[in-house]
């Protein structure tokens, strides 16, 4: 029966990780061996993707690999190291030689969530990994079934109060579950969780009205939301982040809805082991941003509804730190609320 109540474990573990985190932050910033960047890269670059081939992160890594290769005069080989929900590949990336020839791709799940929820993830991303560059950013959106005739988050909360126990949330993967619990925590809304394997399955049931709502990535939602208010087969009511979406300009953001400390989104970024020399990190960051600006990459990103964000190393580092602390806080709060 303990599967029904994972939060107790989650809580204990996140406290432990929290302690480890504080101890480790003091040790960071050590970067020996700064001199060898002049000849970098001297051989092909291996990009470890901690998931099986075919997911969003994998696709972005392959697009990036193709685009950056001519700029650095070396091939980029993508190696899928799947296992333990991304933990195996991330650990292999951490253990790689810190010379920039092995990079590891990270996402919210492997960098900011697993360390606080997954026992196997016995690493600390803020200490073990150095963020290099952001490959892509995907906002999430809360959609509700059309037949509920709900247009805003406030209406959804109202509806939930009037019809106790009637709302369901089509969740998928650990992120979807955290998204739901977080929203409940911030708004007092209650939705029964219904599990799905993927966002496409989840949104299909929201379209059919079998589930009330779902928090999905915008690439999944766009084909069904319509181009204007009320024209889609589902109703988007909230961007689960602070930014407006150009594709759904009428949809409220968390800021507009008055939701604080609640950001659900997904991103893909390149990391290297922490001890990698700073000038190599700088070099990879510059070349990556250059590669992502090519027309071919832009077109393919547009197809996939992935946003580009041009971050230098410092901004990148701050972005990742914010992600880690945000998820950690949310996970801990969810853990202690239950």
């Amino acid at each position, binding site marked *: 029966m*303990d*599967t*029904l109540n*994972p939060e107790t*474990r989650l809580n204990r573990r996140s406290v432990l990780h929290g302690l480890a985190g504080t101890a480790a932050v003091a040790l960071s910033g050590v970067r020996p061996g700064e001199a060898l960047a002049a000849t970098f890269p001297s051989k092909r670059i291996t990009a470890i993707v901690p998931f*099986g*081939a*075919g997911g969003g992160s994998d*696709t972005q890594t*392959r697009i990036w690999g193709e685009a950056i290769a001519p700029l650095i005069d070396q091939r980029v080989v993508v*190696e*899928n*190291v*799947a*296992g*333990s*929900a991304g*933990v*195996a590949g991330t650990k292999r990336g951490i253990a790689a030689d810190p010379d920039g020839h092995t990079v590891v791709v990270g996402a919210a799940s492997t960098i900011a969530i697993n360390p606080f*929820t*997954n026992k*196997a993830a016995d690493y600390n991303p803020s200490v073990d990994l150095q963020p290099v560059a952001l490959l892509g950013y995907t906002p999430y959106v809360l959609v509700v079934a059309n037949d509920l005739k709900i247009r805003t988050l406030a209406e959804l909360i109202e509806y939930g109060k009037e019809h106790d126990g009637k709302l*369901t949330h089509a*969740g998928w993967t*650990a992120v979807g*579950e955290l998204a739901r619990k977080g929203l409940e925590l911030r708004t007092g809304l209650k939705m*029964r*969780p*219904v*599990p*799905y*394997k*993927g966002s*496409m*399955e989840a949104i*299909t*049931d929201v*379209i*059919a009205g*079998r*589930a009330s709502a779902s928090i999905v990535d915008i690439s999944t939602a766009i*084909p069904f939301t319509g181009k204007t208010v009320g024209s889609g087969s589902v109703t988007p009511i909230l961007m689960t982040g602070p930014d407006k979406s150009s594709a759904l300009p009428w949809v409220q953001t968390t800021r507009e809805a008055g939701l604080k400390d609640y950001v659900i989104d997904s991103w893909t970024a390149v990391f290297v082991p922490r001890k990698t020399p700073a000038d190599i990190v700088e070099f990879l960051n510059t070349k990556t941003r250059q590669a992502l600006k090519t027309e071919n990459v832009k077109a393919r990103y547009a197809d*996939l509804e992935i946003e580009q964000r041009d971050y230098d190393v410092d901004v990148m580092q701050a972005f990742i730190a914010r992600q880690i602390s945000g998820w950690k806080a949310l996970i801990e709060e969810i853990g202690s609320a239950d």
Partner: protein
Amino acid sequence: MTDLFDHLLLGFSVVLSVQNILLCLVGCLVGTLIGVLPGIGPLATIAILMPLTYNSEPAGALIMLAGIYYGSQYGGSTTAILVNMPGESSSVVTALDGHAMARQGKAGKALGIAAIGSFIAGTFATLVIATLAIPLSKMALSFTAGDYFALMVLGLSLAIVVAGGSLLKAFCMLIIGVIMALVGANPVTGEPRLTFGSDVLYDGFDVAIVAMGLFGIAEILRNLDSPEGRPFVRDAVGGLLPTREDMRKSAGAITRGSLLGSVIGIIPGNGATLSSFVSYAMEKWVARRPEEFGRGAIQGVAGPESANNAAAQTTFIPLLTLGLPSTATMALVGGAMTLHGVIPGPRVISQHPDLFWGMITSMWIGNLMLVIINLPLIGIWVKFLKVPYRHLFPMIVLICCVGIYSINSQPFDVLLVGIFGIIGYGLHKLRFEPAPLLLGLVLGGMLEDNLRRGLILSGGDIGVFLGAPLTLALLTAAVIVVGSALSPSIARKRQQLQEED
């Protein structure tokens, strides 16, 4: 009707690019090759080649993988006829009369009629898919979790019934498969289940790995069991073109085979193999002189060959319209689609029409290629059979290991293939049919998901969950299927079918 032609036209415009035509040809040739070779089937090949398709367009990749699948049906029958060694299980019955014809010096005719029958059946199945796909996928969108659950129960019941050997053993295999599907992270909470504290089991069992072990490696171990027999190949193949008299005799068999195969292919389980057995039984039953069967009756080749080819194609229907892989091979094809960002399910047709129709029409083009290009190459394919086992088997094992390692870069996966190979060999010795295990593994996760989802949506009320008309109808059908297999007269028929194996 005009819609149908528009769609097929769209499909042709996709297939008829230089790259896709080439990929289709490569798929057909590779398929034929592995169909000819024992020990390596379409499943293992697709698993191995999947990583190679990352960099091509999704449509091209799927066209090639599909080509491997139906191409292997051709290859399998070639060796069944010429040397009495069915390369694939779906060609087992072809060997009965096909090889008898070869002994009478009519090998060419047998090969010819097999190819012509397959082509006609392939054309028919292509049309079946093209007409059924849209209504089915529309229907699938209204399927509830309960309906899916019941559909899978029905599929698994059929899988037990059509598996060889005892029902009880097949049922055991199925249950083991379903339990294996539960290993790994709990889909809702991420909590590890049945992993015995081991990280490597956190992601569960990979279908490709289990299948390659249970079928690929186990098949090789089995072949090592028996002393190597030199395949007997007659040099004189004779003319490939059947006479008018042959055609007259086969026309009915091809028609019936196409129909049967198309229907049986849609049903979960190994449709291609089952349909060839059923077709053979049927031809024998309708024949004016059943005593000719087993002594070179051309209908005994034409019928099953048409049936297995039609079934191999319609097997794609559940995957492409419902998102339900009905065999392990289809589970891998579904994996390959996911890999290219196309999620198998009712939305494939509306969201990726070029890919869907391209793949459907490529099947027809591929069948044409197999007849025109492949038939004259039969001599070359047969030469592959003369490669001694001691060279062939280590090579296949090596290819399997490299292929598996390249999927996840995990050494443990390679070890697992070996373990499952030994298990598969043991199962064979104990006369357990591993196919239901694999199907249980493929469908088990979805079975759990839908059961859980359906129960949550119905508020935990099992009556509401199972009481929906369609759900109830499908579950009743499942009960009837299992019940009838237990009835004495049908049980005897099953027995007979297996003895002919």
